[in-house]
């Protein structure tokens, strides 16, 4: 059976070039980077080379990168670390309502430590309004965290404007760029951010590696206490194969980015156009233009997203409902709630995230197959035919 993998936001295969770069660091180059002898110091040198490659991908300096175990840890370190390091400056944190759980729950954790957290609403396209942020900022605000691109609806936020606003008020700004790095150009100077999180699996590096950019003159309270690793910012012996994998993946991403973005955009537009043509009563979520090039997200009326994902997988098509955590907890996606999608329509969420290896033929197969699967599920649905939900308009809460 044909296999069409369209869930690259969840996981990507480790690229062959990345795997080959990593392999020596599992056995031959096994030394502890902190050791003073050459088996260690040579590995330490390799880590610093990878740091420079990751920095180059986002326009940063190598000394402003700390390696982490994941994008989630990078988000935790940015939010808890920056806020705790500035705890004498203020007690308020602002995050958008559509952040990843690692941001939302870090902010909620800070509430337990007597910080106040503001969850900033977004408009129906998922955009944060700079004026709304301006009104939310107070002299007590320490940090604002707004994601660069949303993994569930693909919307790209106006980060440079939002960050500039915060900078003018002396407030630190963090962006979670896990969904965007390697897919669109990301430059920390253009975005004007103090902290930026990225993740290895988004780039074709293995799971278990991520990184955080931190700006000059920022401070981070460590989450993992240890010794001199990561220049005293994160304890624990370094995940050397993972770091090498991330460095190689970053290097490849930098070279391939312009061509890849165009390829993804073409495939995505064909996919959306095909589904729009062949399937009725489907809401396309996220911003129509300011969105990730390989990202297509929908809500199908009268269908359960999990059923659709399962049925599609039986036909060799792999997508996602968008929010694995919410889906497994039988909750409505907080992102879809935040953009105002009615609760029963939000149940029919389907997200396709394309990768560089996807082809036109694969997309045509999806366009041919998906309408039939939708029709089958709707025939079984007691909700089909009832006009209880506005499927073509949303009201932002």
């Amino acid at each position, binding site marked *: 059976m044909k296999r069409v993998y369209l869930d690259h936001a969840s996981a990507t295969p480790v690229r062959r070039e990345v795997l080959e770069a990593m392999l020596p660091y599992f056995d031959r180059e096994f030394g502890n980077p902190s050791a003073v002898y050459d088996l260690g110091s040579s590995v330490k040198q390799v880590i610093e080379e990878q740091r420079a490659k990751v920095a180059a991908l986002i326009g940063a300096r190598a000394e402003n990168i700390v390696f982490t175990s994941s994008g989630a840890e990078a988000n935790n370190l940015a939010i808890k670390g920056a806020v705790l*390091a500035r705890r*004498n400056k203020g007690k308020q944190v602002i995050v958008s309502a559509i952040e990843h759980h690692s941001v939302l729950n870090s902010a909620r954790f800070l509430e337990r430590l007597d910080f106040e957290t503001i969850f900033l609403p977004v408009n129906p396209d998922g955009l944060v309004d700079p004026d709304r942020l301006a009104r939310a900022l107070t002299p007590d605000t320490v940090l604002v965290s707004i994601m660069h691109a949303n993994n569930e609806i693909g919307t790209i936020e106006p980060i440079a404007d939002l960050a500039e606003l915060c900078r003018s008020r002396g407030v630190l700004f963090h962006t979670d760029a896990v969904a965007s790095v390697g897919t669109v150009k990301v430059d920390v100077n253009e975005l004007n951010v103090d902290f930026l999180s990225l993740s290895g699996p988004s780039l074709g590096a293995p799971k278990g590696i991520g990184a955080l950019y931190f700006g000059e003159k920022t401070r981070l309270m*460590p989450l993992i*206490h240890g*010794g*001199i690793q990561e*220049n*005293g*910012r994160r304890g624990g012996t370094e995940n050397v194969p993972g770091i090498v994998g991330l460095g190689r993946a970053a290097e490849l991403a930098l070279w391939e980015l312009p061509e890849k973005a165009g390829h993804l955009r073409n495939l995505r537009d064909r996919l959306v156009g095909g589904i729009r043509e062949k399937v009725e009563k489907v809401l396309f979520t996220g911003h129509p233009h300011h969105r990730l090039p390989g990202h297509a997200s929908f809500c199908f009326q009268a269908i359960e997203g999990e059923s659709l994902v399962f049925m599609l997988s039986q036909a060799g098509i792999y997508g996602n409902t968008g929010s694995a955590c919410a889906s497994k907890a039988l909750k409505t996606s907080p992102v879809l709630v935040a953009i105002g999608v009615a609760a029963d329509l939000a149940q029919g969420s389907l997200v396709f995230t394309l990768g560089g290896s996807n082809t036109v033929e694969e997309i045509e197969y999806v366009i041919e197959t998906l309408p039939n699967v939708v029709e089958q599920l709707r025939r079984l649905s007691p909700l089909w035919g009832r006009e209880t939900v506005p499927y073509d308009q949303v009201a932002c809460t």
Partner: protein
Amino acid sequence: MKFVKNQQRDETLDLVCRMCPMHLLEPGDRLKCMKKGQVLEVLTDYDGALDDIPEWCRKCGQEFIGLEEDDECYKLYIRKVA
């Protein structure tokens, strides 16, 4: 411990929130890039640095000038003499 106030400095090294023993590693690296007679200001929130840095200066032949304390960190001053 000698306390100072409004000490002039040529460079600042911010080690606030950085884990031990970075306060003993980074000053040496930074002093290598400075000229003799110049003063390095080290910012730290680590109490152990109050004993460690004067002792490190003695071992390395650098001059420990003194300490200033403010609301959020200690400021330790080192003059490069070696």
